[in-house]
């Protein structure tokens, strides 16, 4: 475990170094790429709380990612054309202030996760997977068929949303904003996992029946984990819209849910930094293999199969073992 912790520190060092090097050598593309890794890492860390630590196999986290993205996109879109979003029950106009957008994204993702959680946590296993998937697909088709915000074509925002004083249009600055969020999310997750609440939800993953019998309201615990998990993923969606200055229904599609799940599984289920490593690996594969063939996901599939057969607990555990043997 200690070796893994050292490795995690190195991950953070790399996250500082790569974009700075990209800046020095004037390769902004690498900054964008690392930003993408960080944002997708946040999405994965959100899912990992539910999937990895609590055993809630959600196949619908794209719903939160997409909601966060669309809330950001819509607010920003209206700020630009200065039309009201709606005038009833209260007058609501758009905004391009991140400091306002973030709380709205957090609240709306939490609310969506509460609704989806209340309905789907009554089921377990395959049924839970299917219901979460169904909710995400509902939102996907809704977004496709809603012409006001671009429908299938998606919605472009011409300026990245702004923060006071800081220039968010600068790639390196925006990268460090995302990195701050990553550190906050890792900090919160670590606190949760080590708390007594964390003890309860990690026990639920292993033996819910037993946890019930010692008087713990497992439904409430699971619901709360699901809400926290969805909220974190929703926040990642907001940053993703700002990164691309574009949002389209594809982030609500089940493929997105699958990709977030792949980050978690690639990096290592129930490992704090796992989804981050998974996302990095995914992006690197996409960039390298994607250069040779359009069908790079074939190789991703092969790697996933090999990993699940032989490593099981993700890339991080592979690394942990290697270092141990070296000692």
């Amino acid at each position, binding site marked *: 475990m200690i070796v893994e912790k050292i490795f995690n520190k190195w991950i953070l060092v790399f996250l500082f170094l790569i974009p700075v090097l990209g800046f020095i050598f004037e390769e902004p593309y690498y900054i964008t790429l690392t930003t993408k890794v960080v944002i997708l890492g946040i999405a994965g860390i959100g899912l990992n709380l539910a999937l990895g630590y609590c055993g809630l196999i959600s196949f619908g986290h794209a719903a939160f990612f997409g909601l966060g993205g669309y809330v950001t996109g819509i607010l920003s879109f209206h700020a630009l054309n200065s039309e009201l979003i709606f005038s009833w029950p209260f007058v609501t106009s758009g905004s391009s202030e991140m400091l306002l957008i973030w709380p709205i994204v957090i609240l709306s993702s939490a609310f969506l996760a509460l609704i989806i959680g209340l309905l789907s946590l009554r089921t377990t296993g395959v049924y839970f997977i299917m219901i979460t998937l169904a909710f995400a697909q509902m939102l996907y088709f809704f977004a496709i068929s809603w012409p006001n915000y671009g429908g299938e074509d998606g919605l472009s925002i011409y300026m990245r949303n702004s923060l006071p004083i800081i220039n968010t249009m600068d790639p390196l600055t925006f990268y460090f904003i995302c990195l701050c969020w990553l550190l906050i999310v890792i900090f919160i997750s670590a*606190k949760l996992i080590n708390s*007594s609440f*964390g003890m309860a939800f990690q*026990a639920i993953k292993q*033996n819910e029946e*037993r*946890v*019930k*019998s010692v008087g*713990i309201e497992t439904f409430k615990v699971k619901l709360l984990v699901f809400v926290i998990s969805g909220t974190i993923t929703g926040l990642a969606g907001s940053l993703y819209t700002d990164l691309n200055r574009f949002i389209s229904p594809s982030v609500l599609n089940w493929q997105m849910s699958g990709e977030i799940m792949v980050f978690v599984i690639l990096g290592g289920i129930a490992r704090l930094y796992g989804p981050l490593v998974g996302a990095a690996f995914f992006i690197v594969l996409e960039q390298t293999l994607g250069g040779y063939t359009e069908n790079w996901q074939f190789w991703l599939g092969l790697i996933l199969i090999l990993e699940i057969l032989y490593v099981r607990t993700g890339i991080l555990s592979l690394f942990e073992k290697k270092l141990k043997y070296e000692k």
Partner: protein
Amino acid sequence: MKNKILNIKNLSKSYGAFKVTDEITIDLHFDEIHALIGPNGAGKSTLIKQIVGSVKHDIGSIILDQEDITDLSDVERAKIGISRTFQVSSIIPQFSAIDNIVLSLLDKSSKTFQMFKSVRNNKELYSNANKILKEIELFEKSDISASDLSHGDRRKLEVGLALAMDPKVFLFDEPMAGLDESGTKMMINLFKKIKSNSPILLIEHDMDAVFALADRVSVINYGKIVATGTVDEIRKNELVRDVYLGYEI
């Protein structure tokens, strides 16, 4: 009524035409160990499941400490003081022995929803858990992951989880199954000690243990209670010999 902590009336449950429990009426006094014996498939474990609420009964009522708990859910019943062990050890496999006990202490100390304090720095929880581990003679193994414990130690841990809840009544489902002699002895002494705090409804196949421990014994067969009485009464009861004990006693 006053000397009864748990009072079960006419509890019935059928799966189709098959009556698993058939109008069972049984009670648990303060200060006693009430053993429930009967052949396999007689309905003992189903009765336990109905009392803890994981299986809903069709008719009947359950009264705990003068409160009707018939309509409460399993978690609510656990919270107000029904604590059980499982026939097949049911523990949190990847938790250490002591973490298993701490999990069981969370609800009583209202720590389930405490999110930002490290649970492992909570000295009070861990010292209480250590006390329980000493009682069940697992103190030396507190850091061993539960999945690595021997079968006997898991049975002990199972009882420890129930003990940690400090409930109003214990429902023990074959706690001695598979224990060695010293383990059984430890359990017998432990049960004698804790019964004054919280009486015990005990399902057990080890007749020596039952006769050493029980204040009263009920015999269940085909989902019906066929006899209830003191150990001596049950030993002499011919019907009981027929259905369960055989003739050698």
